[in-house]
């Protein structure tokens, strides 16, 4: 389990970097992230199933200008992990599928708040950079940028750990609930 979370954090940090700070080659899209989380937590197909739906759900929100869209990468980290854990051998039940999608909404909002925070701290970094440049230190631009990238990566790693952790917990819970429901149904019937 430790190794799985470690892998999730590394993938998450890369995905979060791709989201804003570097490249923007779409490694941060829900389809990619949720499938990867599915693979890490034992069910690629369940991850991809949730990822494909999230991919389409979050298409409407564009990162235009300074307006920050909900964190679909975080939603997918959560969703992929939860789906992979909750999926039984026959696949994901419709109930847990809906539950996973709904619970991903607070993740997306939390991720957005974290993104805002990082960008605020970057404002401090940018101001310090400008001051050093005034003193004639051109290297400070490189240091400032590196600091910003590091901050994005760190926050991505922390968010990934939190969201996959929550995902695994929710996945186990829904799996338990399905068992309980089946048991209850048999007992009543």
């Amino acid at each position, binding site marked *: 389990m430790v190794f799985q979370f470690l892998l999730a954090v590394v993938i998450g940090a890369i995905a979060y970097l791709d989201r*804003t*700070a*570097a*490249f*923007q*080659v*779409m*490694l941060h*899209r829900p*389809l*990619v992230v949720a*499938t990867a989380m*599915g*693979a890490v937590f034992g069910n*690629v197909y369940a*991850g*991809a199933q949730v*990822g*494909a*739906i999230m*991919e*389409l*759900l979050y*298409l*409407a*929100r*564009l990162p*235009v*200008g*300074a307006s920050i869209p909900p964190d679909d990468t975080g939603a997918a980290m959560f969703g992929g992990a939860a789906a992979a854990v909750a999926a039984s051998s026959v*696949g994901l039940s*419709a*109930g847990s599928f*809906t*539950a996973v*999608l*709904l619970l991903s*909404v607070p993740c*997306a909002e939390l991720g957005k708040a974290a993104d805002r925070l990082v*960008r*605020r701290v*970057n*404002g401090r*970094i*940018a*101001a310090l*950079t*400008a001051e050093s*440049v*005034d003193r*004639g230190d*051109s290297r400070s*631009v*490189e240091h*400032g*940028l*590196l600091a*910003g*990238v590091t901050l*994005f990566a760190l926050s991505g790693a922390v968010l990934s750990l939190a969201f996959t952790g929550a995902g695994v917990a929710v996945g186990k819970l829904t799996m338990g609930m399905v068992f309980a429901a089946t048991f209850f149904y048999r007992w009543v019937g």
Partner: protein
Amino acid sequence: MEERGRTAWRSTWRRQFLLQGCWNYEGMQNVGFAYSILPALREFYRDRPEELTKALKRHLEYFNTQPSMAGVILGAALRLEERAAAGEADPREIGTFKVGLMGSLGAIGDAYFWGALRPMASVAGAILALVHPFLGIAALLLLYNVSHLSIRRKGFAAGIAGEESAVQFLKGAGFAGKTADRKIVAAILGGAYAGAAASKAAFLFGNGTAPAFLFVAALTVHLLTVLFRKAVSPSEILLFLLMIGALLLWQ
């Protein structure tokens, strides 16, 4: 001189991928822009540290555009700096040029990359993920990045060739037409996806097909609103899904 100039261009080209590395609310992509153009400035203002500082300050001013389109401005700004360093151009022109172009390029880039290319790649990826997850991912990444990287490369090259060629590139690339085409492809693929997902859901859920179809209908409506741009938030769609989920569990 020429050889060293090219080395500087190449490192500017590489550094532009980190344009948003220090994105902040006050200056937005300012640190990233200064970082990208810095190798070239060091080359142009060699042995003139005061002027280097001045030039760097110019590029730490507020800057924001669509990141994949920034190469055009970066290339042209690099050329303008080269001329300013040689005393052939007024440094103030550089700021005017950047500010004048960033909004328009942002709009072109947002419409094409976020509004058309990405939906197309996403829907294609979602369809092929029904066949195999990794096929879906490959399709999404390839469809997006072939166009993305080639526009970045051509845009930077056009910028390097000068202001006029940058504008020529923007006119010649036909972004408006491309944007419209990608949107239509995305809409058609969206329809195909809804069909495929419906049949798959019917197969999976057996006699619970009615909710599955409702779900797919919701998804189709959602896709159409995305492509024809009415403000509907994902949480509204999810609320709708919750109702369907409740319906499903009720049965």
